[in-house]
């Protein structure tokens, strides 16, 4: 079967348990088992090739440019691990089917498990380091889900997060390391990398790469100082612990060290780091394991210890060490999975895993006892069990290893580790199964059904078979070991056998076993010493670190993002000024080429007014009405400035916009406080003023700079001036630019205006349909009101002047193309005319008589402009292409018909609609509950009291 399929099967299979969930637990487990089995068989079909010493490969391009492809390879090492993963996986699935209770969601469980399985297989079969990283991180993620599977347990959540954080961190570091390797070699293909030992080890980035990759390995394999997460992962259901945290995931780090062994090992750095970490882990894990009362915790630390052992072996960098490591991996997988399953059985049956509450199970659970004892003894290194063999090899290797210039350091520590290892194994057997039967088990234990004990039994059978007849696996181990060392070193003669003679390793073994037994004798006093010894609790430290990190993150983020706009604005403005200043200081300045134009008295006076009004605004801004008056003056001065500087269109627009803006702000000010209180400190005001002055100087300097210089070449507006009449049909070049040359800008601009009005309308609706409505209705005016809402003089004036203003608006609209004016200004003029009417007779009276659907006006305006643009398509011209012609119809003078005018009509309508809809919205907010609609256009009308007004009756019918 293709390797791709072997890897893909668990992933696609992962969809099934979830789907099958409703079909029942058996179906769920069954489908999972089937998927695993097919993958397993698929793997086995490749065995002959592997045994023949060939490498099976498969390749699918994924991201070739990045060098990340689905490149898989299967050699001895890969096969070995894949075999373990899938084989033990099958057993775990069987076991898990019976282990999980009815409350547990089995589909979810098996989905995660299969995901994990696929990721693991992916790691060991990857022939691309980036692909390997993908699978690597996937194991972290799926293990996160599995550890946190029992969501109600806080330990599960914490354990899951810890595992993810630690292994995730390692994975990220490894990304760095792998990328370095890939960049050194020029390929991310593992097979290529593995052939470039010399190149890699000579590179200055070898050490960083090594450290980063080892970080990944050590975290995954729970090596000191990252060993602490593994015991907390025991919150996972036992099948998970057995699978991930003994047989597979924690071996991923070991696998990778083995995989990269040919290119990374053999240097002093590798040796010191890996051996030391392994050694410390081995001893530390063993010591801690001895004092754990939770069966699974004990086993977890034993796993840590054994992984340390394997790491140490790989660290020695010798071929023998590598072979011993491979052999121990195999052995550890068999006995440790069996042990975990046994512990799970005990937990499952006795409802506790606390060794202190157990004992005497030998009689109640004989089968379990047998399995667990054989596995534990193997772990303790008792002869005729497989653990003994590999441990002997480890001790043998230790005697040849010199660390930090000392010949005895490694052998002694290895013996101490073995000693403690033996001790906890004896404790596991003794305190759980031996001793008298108790009467206070939380639940009366007995052996489980075959579904639960057969899987560990199979494993224990292997333990014994290998232990007794190691030659059966010798060739296989040899094959795998050769895959590990590649062509870097040569393997010695076949070594795997039970009896080597009276070598130092044998004495060390004996010391360990005897010492272990002795420790059991003095266990109680030892425990007391242990418990009174203060020692760092990894979980507490980790949680503290995460909490501290979170708190630090909060102390960085929250004060910085505290919702203070003024701070944000300040930071932003300072950044802008600083960036501009930086650009300025790093640039060059030449002499100006233009001369200053003389300024007469009038511009100077105008400037003075502007400055005075602006300064007044800053100083008096707390009086908001006064501020509005002053801003009106600023606007007026700017308008006059535009007139002075030959920009009549701008002056008109500025002036009319000013009027409408003031009306708008007054409408808003009606609701807002009329005063701005003094709140900021003097210091703060000085600071703000400093930034303000800096900003002012910056824009002054910039404007002054370029006004005295010429553009680098002729501005494009030369073309506009030259072609405005010829091609645009208008003599007002500004208007022709607006409706023709850059009509598309204008199109966007009226849309902005339309959106503004829609937004204002929508928000008004929201406010009036929300809790604000009541407050608005019962609002008490914040100032005494005068009488005479609709003064007669204003009404009468409006009656006459409003039609005139409309006429002028029309005039401005028409001649905009040739003289100052245009749709936009006309729109504003017409809007102001209607506002006059609103101000004269009130909103209710006015709008009751003529309710334009302003929405529609906006929509129509934008559509007219848009369709004018589209119109040009029908004459095969681009969007908005203008056309014009001159017409003469007596008695009128010759006049111009231009599509631009139609476009301008759209502008006009959009402006009118937008302004009116906005003002209408503001007025709707101001309607009070107690205010009846005005019946008459003016409050006081002496003519009304004499003859009754006839017209109003007519009007009412009309509306």
């Amino acid at each position, binding site marked *: 079967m293709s390797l791709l399929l072997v890897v893909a099967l668990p992933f696609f299979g992962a969809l099934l348990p979830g789907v099958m969930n409703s079909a029942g637990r058996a179906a769920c487990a069954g489908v999972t088992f089937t998927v695993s089995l097919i993958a397993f068989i698929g793997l086995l079909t490749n065995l002959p090739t592997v045994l023949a010493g060939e490498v099976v490969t498969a390749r699918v391009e994924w*991201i070739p440019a990045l060098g990340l492809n689905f490149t898989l390879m299967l050699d001895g090492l890969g096969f070995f691990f894949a075999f373990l993963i899938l084989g033990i996986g099958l057993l775990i699935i069987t076991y898990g089917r019976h282990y999980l209770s009815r409350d547990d969601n089995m589909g979810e469980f098996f989905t995660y498990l299969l995901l994990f399985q696929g990721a693991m297989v992916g790691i060991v079969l990857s022939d691309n380091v980036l692909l390997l990283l993908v699978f690597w991180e996937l194991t972290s993620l799926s293990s996160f889900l599995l550890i946190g599977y029992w969501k109600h347990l806080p330990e599960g959540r914490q354990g899951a997060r810890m595992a993810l954080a630690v292994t995730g961190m390692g994975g990220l570091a490894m990304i760095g390391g792998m990328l370095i390797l890939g960049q050194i070699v020029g390929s991310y293909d593992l097979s290529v990398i593995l052939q470039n030992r010399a190149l890699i080890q000579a590179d200055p980035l070898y050490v960083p790469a090594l450290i980063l990759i080892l970080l990944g390995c050590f975290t995954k394999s729970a090596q000191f100082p990252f060993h602490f997460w593994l015991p907390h992962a025991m919150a996972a259901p036992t099948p998970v612990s057995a699978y991930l945290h003994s047989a597979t995931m924690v071996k991923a780090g070991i696998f990778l060290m083995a995989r990269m062994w040919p290119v990374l090992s053999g240097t002093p750095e590798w040796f010191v780091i890996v051996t030391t970490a392994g050694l410390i882990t081995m001893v530390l894990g063993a010591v801690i394991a001895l004092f754990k009362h939770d069966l699974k915790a004990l086993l977890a630390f034993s796993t840590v210890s054994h992984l340390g052992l394997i790491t140490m072996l790989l660290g020695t960098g010798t071929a023998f060490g590598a072979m011993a490591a491979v052999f121990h991996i195999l052995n550890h997988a068999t006995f440790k999975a069996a042990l975990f399953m046994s512990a799970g059985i005990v937990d499952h049956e006795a409802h506790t895993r606390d060794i202190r509450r157990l004992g005497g199970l030998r009689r109640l659970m004989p089968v379990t006892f047998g399995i667990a004892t054989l596995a534990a003894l193997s772990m303790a290194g008792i002869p005729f069990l497989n653990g003994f063999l590999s441990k002997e090899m480890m001790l043998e290797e230790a005697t040849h290893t010199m660390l930090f210039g000392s010949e005895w350091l490694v052998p002694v520590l290895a013996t101490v580790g073995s000693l403690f290892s033996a001790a906890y194994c004896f404790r596991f057997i003794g305190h759980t199964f031996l001793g008298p039967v108790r009467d206070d088990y939380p639940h009366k234990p007995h052996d489980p059904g075959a579904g639960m004990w057969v899987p560990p039994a199979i494993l224990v059978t292997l333990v014994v078979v290998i232990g007794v007849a190691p030659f059966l696996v010798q060739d296989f181990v040899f094959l795998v070991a050769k895959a590990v060392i590649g062509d870097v070193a040569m393997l010695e003669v076949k070594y795997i056998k039970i009896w080597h003679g009276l070598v130092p390793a044998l004495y060390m073994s004996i010391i360990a076993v005897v010492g272990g037994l002795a420790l059991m004798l003095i266990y109680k006093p030892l425990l007391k010493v242990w418990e009174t010894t203060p020692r760092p609790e990894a979980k507490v430290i980790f949680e503290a670190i995460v909490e501290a990190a979170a708190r630090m993150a909060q102390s960085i983020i929250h004060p910085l993002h505290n919702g203070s706009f003024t701070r944000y604005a300040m930071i932003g403005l300072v950044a802008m000024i600083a960036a501009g200043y930086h650009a300025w200081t790093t640039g060059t300045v030449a002499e100006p080429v233009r001369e200053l134009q003389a300024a007469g008295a009038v511009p100077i006076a105008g400037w003075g007014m502007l400055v005075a009004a602006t300064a007044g605004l800053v100083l008096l801004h707390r009086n908001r009405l006064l501020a509005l008056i002053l801003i009106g003056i600023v606007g007026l001065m700017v308008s006059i400035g535009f007139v002075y500087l030959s920009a009549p269109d701008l002056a008109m627009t500025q002036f009319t916009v000013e009027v409408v803006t003031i009306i708008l702000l007054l409408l808003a000010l009606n609701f807002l406080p009329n005063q701005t209180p003094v709140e900021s400190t003097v210091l703060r005001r000085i600071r703000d003023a400093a930034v303000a002055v800096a900003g002012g100087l910056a824009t002054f300097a910039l404007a002054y700079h*370029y006004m005295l210089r010429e553009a680098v070449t002729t501005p494009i507006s030369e073309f506009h001036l030259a072609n405005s009449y010829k091609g645009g049909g208008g003599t007002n070049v500004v208007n022709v630019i607006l409706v023709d040359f850059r009509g598309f800008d204008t199109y966007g601009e009226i849309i902005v205006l339309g959106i503004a009005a829609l937004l204002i309308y929508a928000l008004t609706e929201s406010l009036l349909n929300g809790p604000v409505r009541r407050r608005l209705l019962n609002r008490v005016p914040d100032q005494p009101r005068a009488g005479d809402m609709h003064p007669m003089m204003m009404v009468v004036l409006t009656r006459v002047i409003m039609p005139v203003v409309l006429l002028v608006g029309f005039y401005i609209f028409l001649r905009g193309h040739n003289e100052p004016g245009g749709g936009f200004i006309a729109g504003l003029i017409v809007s102001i005319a209607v506002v006059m009417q609103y101000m004269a007779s009130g909103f209710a009276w006015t709008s009751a008589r003529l309710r334009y659907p302003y929405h529609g006006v906006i929509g129509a305006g934008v559509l007219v402009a848009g369709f004018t643009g589209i119109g040009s398509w029908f004459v095969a011209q681009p969007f908005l292409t203008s056309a014009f012609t001159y017409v003469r119809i007596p008695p009128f003078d010759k006049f111009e018909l231009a599509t631009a005018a139609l476009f301008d009509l759209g502008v006009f309508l959009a402006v009118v609609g937008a302004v009116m809809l906005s003002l209408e919205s503001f007025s709707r907010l101001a309607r009070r509950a107690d205010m009846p609609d005005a019946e008459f256009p003016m409050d006081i009308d002496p003519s009304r009291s004499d003859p009754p007004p006839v017209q109003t009756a007519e009007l009412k019918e009309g509306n």
Partner: protein
Amino acid sequence: MTHWIILPIVLPALLAPFMVLTARHHIGIQRVFSLAGIVGLIALSIGLVWQVSDGSVIYYRLSDWAAPFGIVIVGDRLSTLMVLLTSVLALFVLLYAIGSKWDERGRHFHALFQFQLMGILGAFLTGDLFNLFVFFEVLLIASYGLMIHAGGNARLRAGVQYVLFNLIGSTLFLFALGSIYAETGTLNMADLAQRVTLIGAEETVGIRIAAVLLLLVFAIKAALVPLHFWLPSSYAEAPAPVAALFAIMTKVGAYAIIRVYTMIFPPELEVTSGMHDLWLLPAALVSLAIGMIGVLAARKLDRLVAFSIIGSMGMVMVAISLFTPSSIGAALYYIVHSTLAGAILFLITDLVRTGRGTLDLTAQPPMMGTHMTAGMFFAGAIAMAGLPPLSGFLGKLMVLDAAYSDDLVVWVWAIVLSSSLISVVGFARAGSIVFWKALGTQATVEPATDLSRPSALAYAAIGGLFALLVAHTVFAGTVHSYTTEIAEELFDHESYFSLVLDTPGKLSNPKEAH
């Protein structure tokens, strides 16, 4: 001349007023129009992408005036890709808005939505700098409307800050444009690119300031630290589908930086050297760090997602600011990824809000319908945190790979990787609190009555986005080689220039222009 390239702008721009005019009281009709419009947009953008996929450029003279005198629309592989991304995102966001009935909770949602699209698409397609300003304003003002859609106190208060900050940005844009016109006398991007090369070394301050101001404008859009402050509250407070749509808005800034700083002010341009090539990368790295630290620091899920957007933009900007074809190729790949991932997370956040009643990251009673939501959150978080197998991881690898030869590679790698870790921790923390940690075992809370439960359509919308994300992952090779080709094209503009500047328009002879 075909008109296809202008349609992505004109179609929503006509649809919106049409809805306002005819269907403003009929939400059903609006939905149909809106959906139909977006489906049309998608079809259009696929066609456009197809048309330029061979490296050709589509050029459109508005009002028939040739560049640089009139406004031109230019569709190349970069802009059409962004157009396609926007319209596809819009479809799913709109489906969610309909499915969750968000569109009913205020007025004119669909019109504003269409206008928003018009602004974004226009910004991607225009070849004129001032026109870009106009489209920025269109997209901004529509975004204000969408952001405060349905009202509410906190939202309006955040809205005020959002609007004000962006007003400062718009003002800055005009300052930049004024400087550029004063210095060069043109507004067309291609013309500008040619004119800046005429500027001598004896006087560079003017164009330098223009270039840096423009960069700041785009940096605001891209939420680059320290100009990112507008983002967290406004994205957190915005209605979920709106925030999801906003995922593309930050990319407008990134797009503009790519366009302007590869075409007009490329790193090798002497007169503007030593500015953006100096500051952009550090700022991007800080953004990445701040964003991901924010993920860890967040006390509410919506702010967490908002900060993750800042972080992902930091990542995009890191890639951009390396200014090599491979880094920009990576940036474009990552842009697509982070747009989808950000949108997904915002929509899921809405599901959490609906199911749980609050987004506080504190223990709450268990929520309804957790399973699906939790799974989606997990996947979304994986995507955003850049864990495998989703595109975030691939994008991260691309960026790291592209950074290898940069002087600051150590910084880039260190910050990219460590911020990744921080965000993993942050997401894990938040996810486990929201979905795992529950107060007691009492019955799940019924969602408050005023929160209408999202329908299957809402879930389907998120599912659709996930499908896109998966496709982006599975076909990463194709996408990546495409984005790399785009990036290479960005560093070689000759065909673009000759097309835009040498094609005559009404009354113009291209020879006279220069």
